[in-house]
Structures are given as structure tokens and as C-alpha cells.
């Protein structure tokens, strides 16, 4: 029957668009970078200021608050009615992953800011224009004794922030491509990998001028391990959808084979984000050539891949609804 029931445009609107994709990326990077920073902090052996490990810690501590604040700003701006966002703060729905997420963010953000102040204490003291924060800094110094506790809470909060974004999407059984229990794991893993990548990148560029071959090799192997975790996870995710029965299966297949979006996945997420770094690492390890350039390229590629993964999932879910 030729259409005569009115416009169906409202069914095709992409409600969560690029702003949300970027927010998920930023939230992931924030959580990932601070988790990595904490792990490095807890496990490092050398105490040298100019080691790559220290750079990574510093990087994570800086990236985490900046990216989460940027992300929060994007979230509020993307709301249909941004000025009404305060309702999120005064109402709580324990059944809503979004509401839980707001709670986690309300806990995480202040703690990460406090942690940042702790890590950069010496820098704060050094710079005169930060002295108005003087009394605040004194207070921060007094928290030193609680450092370990703060760090544990931070890790907990960061894990919550890092995984809640996956649950935000997977909770919706109305969206076949999101409704997988594997999605939160994919997101968490990818956010940790983005954390590693950004910490290396920012660390090398801003906080460290030299890095020795052993460290490079270590980082390249770390890259390899992360990619070899992510690739199978993505595989499990999609295979799970293929066996999801009915619409889920056909939507997943369509999302991987149709048009520009499929291209973004295969070229961007898999190609640039995973296979390119993989090839670089294997090549480097084989030929024993350890250049800083490789690491920087890999880190950028991984970050791009993570962003594109968020973009792909967000859009594919809303387009391939069945």
C-alpha cells in the first residue's frame, strides 16, 4: 500500500549522535587513563622522575580530569534542554544506568581532581599563579596520609565509570546491536587500551624526553597484548549477536556489511585501530627496530580506533533496529 499515514521521519532520527559517541570516548579515556596510571603507580619499581612510567602516571592524572570534564560538558550540551540538567542531580533512579552513571561521575570526578592535585602537588607549589589555591593545597597535602585509600576509591570509581557506558547501551533490549552482555566488557577493555595509548602519547610528548629501548620494547609488547585481547572480544561480541536469533542476527550482519558505517568499522576500528598497530608491533619485534615513532603512531592509531568504535556502535545500533 502506498504510504498514507504521514511522515515516518521520527522513526529514523539518530537521537544519540556524534556528541554522545565522543562523550563515551572521553569517559572511556578518562577512566582508562586513570586506571592505567594507578596500575603503573602501584607496580613500578624505579623511582626516577624521567622514566616513562612516571610520565605515564603524570599523563593519566592530567588526561583523566580534563577528558571527563570535557565529556560532561558535551553531555549537558547535547541534552534537548541543557538548562534542565540539574534534575539529574536532584533525582535518582537506581534502575536507570544513566542515573547510576551520574552517581558514579559525581563520585569519580571530585576524587580524580583531588588525585590530580596530589600528584601535581610539587608543581602547584612551584607556580606562583596557583598560590591562591594555597590553603586548598595545604588541605590537599594533609590528605597524603589517606593517599592509598583515595587511590583505591579512585580505582573503584574509575572501573565503574569505565564499564557503566557499556551497560548504558546494553541495558536497552530494544536495540539489537547494543543488547549484548559482552558490550560492557568490550567497552572497558577498549577504554583501558585507550588509557594506555593516551598515557604513552601524552607521556612521551609532554613529560619525557628520552626513553630506552627496553621500555619501548615493553610498550610494544603491551600494545600487542591489548590488541590480542580486544580482537577476540570484538569477535565474541559479534558472534554472540549472530547467534542472537531472528532480527539480532540479520541486523548484526547488515551492520557489518552495508555502506559507510561498515567501512568505518572495518577500515577504522579494525584496520587502523587494531591491525595497523598489530602489524607495526610484529614488524618491529621481528626486525628488532625499536623506534619512538612507531609507538607514537600506534598510540594515535589505537585512539582513533577506540573513538571510531564508539561512533560505530552508537550509530549502527540506532540505524539497524530491525
Amino acid at each position: 500500500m502506498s504510504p498514507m499515514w504521514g511522515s515516518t521521519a521520527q522513526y529514523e532520527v539518530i537521537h544519540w549522535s556524534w556528541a554522545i559517541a565522543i562523550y563515551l570516548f572521553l569517559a572511556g579515556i578518562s577512566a582508562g587513563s586513570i586506571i592505567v596510571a594507578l596500575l603503573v603507580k602501584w607496580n613500578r619499581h624505579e623511582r626516577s622522575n624521567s622514566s616513562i612510567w612516571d610520565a605515564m602516571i603524570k599523563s593519566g592524572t592530567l588526561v583523566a580530569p580534563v577528558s571527563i570534564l570535557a565529556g560532561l560538558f558535551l553531555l549537558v550540551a547535547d541534552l534537548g534542554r541543557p538548562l534542565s540538567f540539574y534534575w539529574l542531580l536532584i533525582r535518582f533512579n537506581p534502575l536507570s544506568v544513566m542515573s547510576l552513571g551520574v552517581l558514579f561521575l559525581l563520585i569519580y570526578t571530585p576524587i580524580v581532581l583531588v588525585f590530580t592535585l596530589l600528584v601535581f602537588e610539587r608543581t602547584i607549589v612551584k607556580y606562583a599563579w596557583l598560590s591562591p589555591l594555597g590553603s586548598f593545597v595545604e588541605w590537599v597535602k594533609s590528605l597524603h596520609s589517606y593517599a592509598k585509600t583515595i587511590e583505591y576509591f579512585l580505582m573503584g570509581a574509575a572501573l565503574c565509570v569505565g564499564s557503566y557506558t557499556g551497560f548504558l547501551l546494553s541495558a536497552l533490549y530494544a536495540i539489537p546491536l547494543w543488547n549484548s552482555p559482552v558490550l560492557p566488557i568490550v567497552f572497558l577493555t577498549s577504554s583501558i587500551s585507550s588509557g594506555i595509548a593516551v598515557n604513552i602519547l601524552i607521556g612521551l610528548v609532554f613529560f619525557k624526553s628520552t626513553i630506552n629501548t627496553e621500555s619501548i620494547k615493553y610498550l610494544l609488547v603491551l600494545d600487542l597484548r591489548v590488541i590480542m585481547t580486544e580482537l577476540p572480544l570484538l569477535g565474541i561480541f559479534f558472534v554472540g549477536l549472530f547467534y542472537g536469533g531472528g532480527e539480532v542476527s540479520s541486523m548484526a550482519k547488515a551492520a557489518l556489511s552495508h555502506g559507510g558505517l561498515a567501512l568505518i568499522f572495518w577500515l577504522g576500528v579494525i584496520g587502523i585501530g587494531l591491525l595497523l598497530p598489530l602489524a607495526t608491533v610484529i614488524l618491529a619485534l621481528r626486525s628488532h627496530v625499536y623506534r619512538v615513532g612507531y609507538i607514537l603512531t600506534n598510540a594515535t592509531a589505537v585512539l582513533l580506533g577506540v573513538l571510531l568504535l564508539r561512533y560505530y556502535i552508537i550509530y549502527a545500533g540506532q540505524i539497524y533496529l530491525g
Partner: protein
Amino acid sequence: MQGSLRALEPSVLKGEDKWVRSVCEMCSSRCAIDVRVVDGKPVWLQGNAFDARMHTSICARGLSGVSQLYDKDRLTTPLIRVGQRGENRWREASLDEALSFVASSMQRLKKTYGAQSMLFSSKTGESFDLLSSFASNYGSPNTFSHWSSCPIAIESALEQTFGERAYRDFEHADYIVNFGHNLFEGLDIPLSKAMARFAANPSKKLIVLDPRFSMMAGKADEWYPIRAGQDLAFVLSLLHVWLRDAKYDHAFVQRYCIGLDALKASLKETTPQWQERYTGIDARTIERLADEIYRAAPRCILDWGHKATTSPAEFQRTRAILIANVLMGNVEKKGGIYFAKTPEMLNELLQKPLFPLLQSPYPAPNVGISRIDGAGEEGSAYRFVPKKHGVLNSIADAILTQQPYAIKGWFLTRHNPLVTVADPQKMRAAMATLELIVVNDIYMSDTAMMADVVLPEATYLERDEGIHVHQGLIPSYTMRNRALMPLRGTQSLRETVRRLADALGFGDAYPWKTIQELRAYQAKGDSALLESLVKRGYVQATIPPLFLREEASVRAFCERYAHVDLMRVSEMFERRRKTPSGKIELFCAHIEEAFAGYGVPCAVDMDVQHNYPYTLISGKSAIHTNAHTQNVPYLHALMSENPLWMHPSTAKAHGLRPNDTCYIENEIGKEKVKVFITEGIRPDTLFLYMGFGRQTPLLPKIDRKGSSASKLLSLQTAPVCGAMITNTGVRIVRA
């Protein structure tokens, strides 16, 4: 939104909140409606539940009455043409100026060429009755209703076969054969609802014949995609089988009909095998259906439809269908067909004036001049066409050839022939030669653009009108009551005619000045009736339905009215019919005399494709009414174009994909179309919904949107009845 309930929320509690009972006019089904008016603004519409068949139902078009009422594109002031005709340049004028312009022009035409040089056309209904009387008093015989573009074949066939109109008892039938009568898109709520219930009832059977998988076909138990225009072949083969096997109501035919022998002779060759090559329907199916229908008789109906314009054989087709009903013996049977029990008939039977008798407020004196199309006149090709209604297809040629006499003017109301009548290209050329065109409409339609004077009509929600009697099993009365005063200077046709009649010197012909006087005159002073019609909108006395040949029905009626004699009631069916023979005519001798071979249904005139590769058919949608509603905002939002339906194999053959554009053409015209590919149509057939493809620069929303099938229709008419033919052969071209 202006006029919506929400917009009025704060004032609802304080302001006036009332219900006005009226009659819808978003299509010509004219369902009884309730209008909720809050603070002088209609905010809600629904069916008038006093008509039990309506309950509170109302369709999308009915509900859009408010959207139409407040449509910003509605005409608000009279317009007088400046520049060339059709150039579309206008100046606003006061009603006084416009009406005196019209009056003086009409006087001039009458003096120079005679009153007959002016045509008057309108959609059938109260406006047509009013306009015809205006025309007659003015002195012109040339009145045209929309009948010849719609039901004229049926009206003629009924008249010639029974001597009166027949009605269908869908509610109680067990088996219905539907010949494309699309009650689920061409809505008439009481009938559509009855049909919907019928179709949803698992113990009943619905057979639908339609080249397209329409909404009606979608509800069929069996749908046959019959080749366009071939219904007659199908019916003739059914009749053949029944007569061959003597499976028909012998007693009824013997007693009440004439012409059985002529019928038998005509059907000798029309076997189920014979019809296969015409319809594409298997011979065994005909045998089976014939058997099933016969076994369901008399609770079976072969539905002759409403709009009958499918082929030149229209008159024959409809006659064949009527005869099929007769043979099944369903006349005046429950679940079959019946004739109107008029107020006069019932009052006489009951010996009490239970049903008010009305007098027409629109006197139409006989005009001694013959019509341009010879409708109803001896010796003319259209002698069997009802005189008042005329043949629309004859207008363009008559004007262009100035035969039989000069035509110089045209007064139109509620009529848009440049969209609804065949060959609008020729019509436009003809209209260009006229000296006076007056259009009374709510929109600046395609036809209005060719006018000299455009008068802004008030919509039905703004009009008080007279009483309408609905004939059927039990007569009912409705009356249109205005829900609000006319907006911004629009006025009803009645007021326009009233003033023009005065200006033209025959104002005294009308025994009323105001609507109140009109109603009082019509009701012969019956104020109780009028009060009831204002308060309830729908008036119907409660009596048991009377099917004259249904024993149980007659008995129930007589039990109810002890003084009514059972014999008397039964005798009512025995009376002489208004046909030449006084009986039901299977064979019409007088038609045979005038048109040899047409006295009895026979296999003629069925071809519509004329050697073209495809037949273009058209039809109604549930969203729009012909060429009237396309601009109404609510309805426009639902459906703003009419893509051409074609089968996937057709699309493939021309390398067409969904939403491609291409053209359809034949010797009459060429029209651009947008492609809609669907399994729901025969591979050799194409379909367009009516009413699109407009030329209305002043209505930019609909201007040049969609396609007009009329541009490809020829002015050929169906023999005997003068019907327009809306199926035609076309070819597809890419550019």
C-alpha cells in the same frame, strides 16, 4: 494550533462548550456528525451517535474539517479577474461588486445568446438542487451534476431495470461479490462499517474482483485480479451457468420479470471458458463461485458499486449485475437487495404521518429548450440519461464547436472539472473561449483559476442548510447546522443564489428569504421536526425494518402494528413498477429500440486497453476526496502525492526502481509519474489515486505534486448512460 482544545484550555471551564449536530461534507457520503464547539470554535468532530450505524465513528477526512476550516489558503474575499483568463491575476472585490458583476454578465449573456448559453454544474446534493433551480429559473436547461463522472451508469441501470433505486443489505448477507466497490477507501461510514463487519466474520464470504490489491481486496476471502474493464464478461458467465443449470429463482423471475428468453439468447456463448480470455479467471472458478452464490442465495449480494466508470460497457455491466441479483431471488429479502420504503408509502401503510413529508424549496420550472447534450431527449444518443444530470464529457466539444448552439458561460460550485473530468487539456481550451465563468469554491482550485469571478464559499461547518431525507429501509432525516458563523466574509451558495435571483428578477420564485424560512417551508411548518433536527441532527422513527418478501420481517412488522393488514403489506411488492412493462426488466424493449443490442446485457464494449501495453486505472483513497481535500493541512501531511503503482515485472521491463520518475502517455496526453513498485497490481495494469497533478500556483503546497490520470482519459462516453470512462490504455516512456 489555532482552534485546538489545548489552545483554549484556560477558557474551557468558563466559556461556552456545546455540541452542534450537523452533516459532514468532506466527501459526498454526508455522514451525520457531532461538532464540539468551545467559545465559538469547533475543536472536535465525531459521528452523530443518534445514527446508530455511525455510533461515534468518523473518518480522517471528517476529522480534518477543522483543519480545512482554518486552512490559511482558503478563499476569503471575492476575486475578479484582471488580465487574461487563466493568467491568474486577480483583484479583490466586495461581495456586492462581485455579485452585481455576475448578475449583469448573466443578463448580458441571456440577452445576447439566450439563457441556454450558460452552463451550471455542481456536485450532486443540496448545492446541485439549489443550482439547478437557479438555472431553470434563469432559463437554462444545461445543468450538470457529477453523475456522469461517477454513478450515472448505476442510476440508469437501476432506473431501467427496476424503475427505482435499489439498496443493499450488507449487514445480513452471507455472501458478497464485490466488483471493485472500494468501501474501505471510498468511505461511507455506515456502509463501510457494515462491510468491515461482514469481512471480519469468518462465517461469511467476500469475493473481490479488482485489478489492484486495494483495501477492499485486502479483506477478501478470495481476490481475483480481474483484467480492467472485464467485469461484464465475468458476470455474463455467471448468468450463463445459472441459466444453463436452471439454478435461479424460477418463481420470482416468472412472476415479476420480463425478458428471460432474450437474456438466455444473449448468454448462449458466454461460458466460463469463453470469459477466461477476457478476465484471466479460470473457468472452474466461475463454476465454483456460481454454485457457492446460488447456495448462499437469497442471502447473497452482487454489489454493483457506487462509481461505475470502468469501461464503455458500464451500462451493460451494471445491468448484468442487477440481473444476477434478480436471478438469485434476493429482491426484498433480508441479506439481499431492497427498494426504498418511502415516507409516503409508510405513512399510508401505517395510516399515520410518522414520517414527515417535505416539499422542495428549490422550484425548477421546465425550460422549453433542449440541452446541449440531448440528455433525456427523444432521438438523442443520451435519451436515457437523466435530464437534470447531463453528460459532462460532452461539454468541451459543445463549447468548441458551438453546437447545437453557442455556449458562452459557466457557473460552477463544488466542482473542479479540470481535475475530475476527462481530457482537461481540451476542457481548458474550451473554457478559454467562454465569456463568463463564475466559480464558487473554498479554494482557488484548478478550475477557479480559469474564472472571471471567484466567490469564496463557506465550508459546511459554517453553513445552515435545509433538510435532507435519506431513503432506504426506514427513512431518516438530517440537517446541516452551522457550528460557527462564516469566517472572514465567506458565504453559502444559498445566500449567493438568493441575491443573484433577486438581481436577475426571479427572486419571487423562491418562497423563502432566510434559512429559517427555507426550513419552515421545506418542513411545511413542522416545527417539532425542525427542533429535533437542530437538537439531534438525525431523526428516524423507530419501526421494524420491512423486507417485503421476507416472511419473518413482514410478520414482525404486522405484529407491531396490529391495524396493518398482512395481505396489504405483501401486496406492496405486487404493485406495478415504474418501468415501461410494469415489471422488472431483464430485457428493456425501449432501449433495444433505440440502441440495437443494448436491450439485454451482452458482451460488448469491454476493451479499455486499446492495443496499448498497459491499462491505467484510478481510484479513491481513504485520505482524500477526489480533487477537494489535497490542500487540507492534516490530510496533506498524511498523503501529498500519488505515485504510480506498478508490478515488479513492469518496473523491471522498463528498468525502473522505486521513486524513479517516468511518463505515461497515450493519444490524449502525457503525464509525469513517480514509480511505486508493488506486488498488489496486475503486471499489465497501472494505478493512480485520484485528485493529484494539479495546476494551482496559488496553492503551492499541491501545485504540480503527483499526477493526474484525467489528462490521459478520452471524452468517449459509455453508450446509453453517458458515463465517463476512467480506465484507459497507456504506454510507459522514460522521458
